[in-house]
């Protein structure tokens, strides 16, 4: 008997969604856009985090070596820098390597390369490239390199030129990440309110149906559960639509990233693929749960009548 009842509840829920098609479409579109907006926010947050990581991985400070510095002193300096635990990579480029690197980086600019050849002697300085994964360490490394003992070796560092931009970016990402919880809660609250009102209005427009069901002797459970089942169908449909929209958005963004963030290495479409199951379960799970709970609550009001 319980099986028959469950089957009936299930089929009434499905029937309710199909036969109230405009109400259902309205609810599905609203829930889909709401779930998608949350996903976009989470994705943006993730992308920002990835950008920060990618940026931090590329954080480096270049120490330019004086022309007059003895090679042994330079090697000594490189060794001391390498011993620091806060550096991830220390690369010394002598004049030849420095020139080769310069040519590699500017291979698309033949005029510049030609002018380098015109100069004759290699005018490029020796330098040490020091990488770290913590932006806060950069100033320490700069201070370390500028110690008196390295005065005969160190000419200048790149830290001063990039310091403001690095600080600005680091502060921005820190601020955003710290506030993402508050912003997430804000978004989630708005979403719940929007979805709640859409479902409530859909059920409000069918309140007479609920009244008729009561007159023919339907129990509260028999009235309520088809609406909850209908809610889960709406939520599932909306979630799948939001996933499709999200994929299209990721594809579109993938074509824009190389233009606006060249060399960032971020590929939204690839990230979508990488995190598909996380997105799937979070979208479908939250969509179904949200609409089912809201339907349950929204019907309750009409069941309180005699």
């Amino acid at each position, binding site marked *: 008997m319980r099986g028959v009842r469950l089957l009936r509840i299930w089929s009434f829920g499905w029937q309710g969604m199909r036969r109230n098609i405009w109400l259902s479409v309205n609810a599905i579109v609203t829930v889909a856009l709401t779930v998608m907006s949350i996903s976009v926010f989470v994705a943006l947050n993730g992308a920002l985090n990835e950008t920060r990581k990618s940026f931090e991985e590329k954080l480096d400070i270049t120490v330019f070596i004086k022309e007059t510095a003895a090679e042994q002193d330079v090697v000594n300096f490189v060794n001391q820098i390498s011993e620091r635990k806060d550096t991830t990579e220390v690369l010394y480029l002598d004049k030849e390597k420095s020139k080769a690197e310069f040519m590699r980086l500017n291979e698309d600019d033949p005029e510049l390369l030609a002018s380098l050849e015109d100069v004759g002697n290699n005018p490029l300085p020796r330098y040490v490239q020091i990488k770290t994964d913590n932006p806060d360490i950069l100033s320490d490394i700069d201070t370390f390199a500028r110690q008196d003992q390295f005065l005969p070796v160190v000419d200048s560092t790149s830290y001063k030129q990039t310091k403001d931009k690095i600080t600005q970016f680091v502060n921005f990402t820190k601020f955003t990440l710290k506030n993402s919880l508050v912003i997430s809660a804000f978004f989630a609250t708005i979403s719940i309110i929007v979805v709640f009102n859409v479902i409530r209005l859909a059920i409000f427009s069918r309140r007479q149906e609920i009244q008729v069901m009561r*007159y023919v002797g339907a129990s509260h459970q028999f009235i309520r559960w088809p609406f909850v089942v209908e809610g889960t169908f709406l939520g599932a449909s909306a979630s799948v639509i939001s996933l499709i929209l999200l994929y299209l958005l990721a594809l579109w963004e993938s074509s824009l990233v190389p233009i606006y963030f060249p060399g960032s290495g971020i590929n939204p479409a690839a990230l979508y693929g990488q995190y598909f199951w996380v997105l799937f379960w979070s979208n479908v799970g939250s969509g179904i749960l949200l609409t089912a709970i809201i339907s349950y609550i929204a019907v309750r009001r009409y069941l309180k009548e005699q």
Partner: protein
Amino acid sequence: MVEFRAVSKAYGNIEAVEDVSFRIGKGEFVSLVGPSGAGKSTIVKLLIREDQATSGQIVVAGRDITTLKRSELPFYRRKIGVVFQDFRLLPNKTVYENVAFALEVSDAAKSEIQQRVPMILEMVGMLSRSDNFPHELSGGEQQRAAIARSLVHDPKIIIADEPTGNLDPVNTWEIIELLFKINQQGAVVLLATHDKEIVDTLKKRVITMRAGRIVADQQKGKYLL
């Protein structure tokens, strides 16, 4: 079968029904008449427990329904049949599904539904309209479908609240004849109406109400007001 014992119902300061007592025996056809505001609809609402009496007892088939718990109401309502002026069919279900729904809520088996629903639809002359939705039917057809729904679980009491209020004369008489037929098969019919012609033609028991009180109760009565 149905007994009102000193029943009163007040909505705020307004006494809709005041100290009403009457008794309806098995197999009776009773017309409850009176002008608008007389208290007919309140009696119907109390009888289907849409409203709760302020005082008094309403006994149906030996049970005081004023003491029913909320959880007991569905079981009570499955034992009575109700027909409304505005039909109150489920708009997104076909005629067949509307009638079947009354059985489905009581966990009736599929085989029972498949056997009873066509039989009842045949009885009210709606079998050919089984697959139509309410908005595809005329008023008279909708009311027939509503009557079929009220009958399908074989209730011993049918309560009809102005069932012909929205119908033309031809459909009105067809519905009354249908109620009459149901009564002849043994069910109690309580017909709330203010249609003088119907009441006078039926020549059945008439309870007349005015301002929330019973002013006359006649066997083979007429519309007095």
